[in-house]
């Protein structure tokens, strides 16, 4: 991991134009918070629950093997103290839905539709190593994030009406890299900050591991992602 961060930092340094060092005004420290839009994909681990029988297992039977797209909006407030970067406390809301087909009582697939939808809510703590950009001028900023998750879910059947709904709690952790776009056009970045208060605009690559099964409950869905959730995002730092 450290090698990856080092490589990213070197790449960022290579990308950064020489003018950076002579123009530090757009790399001032501080900030009040951030807003992030993320797009990724997700597949719940329902079929990994113990006690399920038959083949294929119910999620695979209904929705196949894909990883439908997920969306998330995340907002965070920077804490007044810093530790080599911003520490933010935030909340997020997302949306994800899988569309599939019901099953005849014989087990054969039906052409009737069924859907499984989730609105995940999260509260997060994020540590973003802003000094990499603000002091070193390297436009690749690593960050780490821990979260509490609450997945509100519902299932629809043949007629389109909800047949069951519920919520499952859990947690997540992970991190990512943010590419600071300010270095592409510092003048426009400064104008953007002056007009809208957006200090930095970043493209993020986010990797999160989730454990969403009501903290090990045997009578809850296992909505943990089957693998680490990779998502791309656009982050605005205020």
């Amino acid at each position, binding site marked *: 991991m450290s090698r990856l961060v080092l490589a990213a930092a070197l790449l960022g340094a290579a990308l950064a134009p020489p003018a950076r060092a002579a123009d530090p005004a757009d790399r001032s420290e501080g900030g*009040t918070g951030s807003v992030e839009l993320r797009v990724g994909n997700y597949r719940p681990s*329902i079929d990994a*629950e113990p*006690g*399920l*029988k038959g083949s294929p*297992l*119910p*999620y695979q*039977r*209904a*929705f196949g093997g894909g990883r439908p797209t997920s969306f998330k909006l995340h907002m965070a*407030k920077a804490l007044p103290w810093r530790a080599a970067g911003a520490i933010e*406390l*935030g*909340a997020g809301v997302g949306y994800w839905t899988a569309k*599939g087909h*019901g*099953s*005849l*009582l014989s087990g054969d697939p*039906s*052409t*009737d539709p*069924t*859907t*499984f939808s989730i609105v995940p*809510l999260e*509260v997060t703590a994020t540590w973003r190593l802003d000094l990499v950009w603000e002091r070193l001028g390297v436009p690749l900023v690593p960050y780490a994030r821990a979260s*509490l*998750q*609450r997945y509100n879910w519902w*299932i*629809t*059947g*043949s*007629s389109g009406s909800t*047949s*069951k*709904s*519920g*919520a499952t*709690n*859990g*947690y997540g952790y992970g991190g990512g890299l943010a590419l600071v776009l300010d270095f592409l*056009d510092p003048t*426009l*970045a400064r*104008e*953007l900050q002056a*007009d*809208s208060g957006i200090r930095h*605009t970043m493209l993020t690559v986010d990797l999160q591991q989730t454990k969403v099964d*009501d*903290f090990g*409950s*045997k*009578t*809850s*869905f296992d909505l943990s992602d089957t693998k680490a959730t990779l998502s791309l995002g656009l982050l605005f730092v205020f």
Partner: protein
Amino acid sequence: MAFALHSSGAMLRCFSLLAVLAAPLVGLAQTASLTLTPPGPFGRADCGAVAGSADDVQISSIDWQVAPPSGSLPGTDWTYKVKALPSGVNCTTDGDDTNMINQSTLHWSTGSKGSYPGGSTDGALFLSKIISKSKSVCTGTSDLIITVCVQLLSGSTINTSISSTVTIQLAPPAAPTGVVVAPGMEALNVSWSEGSGGSVASAKYRVEVSPLLATCATPLAPTVACLDLPNARTYTTPTATTSYRFGGLVNGTDYGVRVYGISAGGNDSLPSAPPVHGQPVPVNDFWQQYQAQGGLETGGCGGGPAGLVSLLTLAGLALGLRRRP
């Protein structure tokens, strides 16, 4: 993109470009036009309606706009004629007043716009009058195309004219083919293909689901005689989509399904043949299938500390936001 839009100079350039691009469109809005409401196309049933009957399609208005006649001055009244012409007759030269639906005057100050029927003395206008004035007949299977024409006259000379056409489709679309009926929960999932060989396309479809009569000897391969047509239910698709989930049926009941194509003018095709058997059956959605395979989730809000912690964190965050100016 956000940076580009942010620049006030760039935005100004964008607006300038839009203005330049929009200029021709503004000009287009002022060109000559003639429209009927409704515009059609109409179908064979509309063509054969008895004049003034309930089936006769009412044309609520013919609206037209032309450039002011050359040499017109304020205060000048111009004669205009609304006509219905057989296909091939030219509006700019037609002098046959037996084609005329209405004649009136247009005052210069009202501009170059007109509408018929519009005056208090104008009677209702029906499609049958347009057909009869154009001396058209509803025979054959080719589209009937009638030119609706407005002429502005200076004395007896046609100064300006504008025309448009009304299409009456006389042919039906081809009967749909390849009807497939898949069982659903209290429903049948029906799909089909547009038939080939029709002279007009299907603009929408009507799906007909009939219970089978108890006397039907071959319910799995029903004939038309097996269909309980008085108790049939139908659904007309709003577009030319080729599938529909027909709900509200009874699980375990045998049905026969036929599909009709409908042209834009409203002409029905022959039904797809032969009728296709379908029987709604119970279907497990994901939740039911999960339970059937031994799943233990029971639904409802999950327990655990995350909910409470989440709420406390959100409350703290909100409080922090309020305290900071």
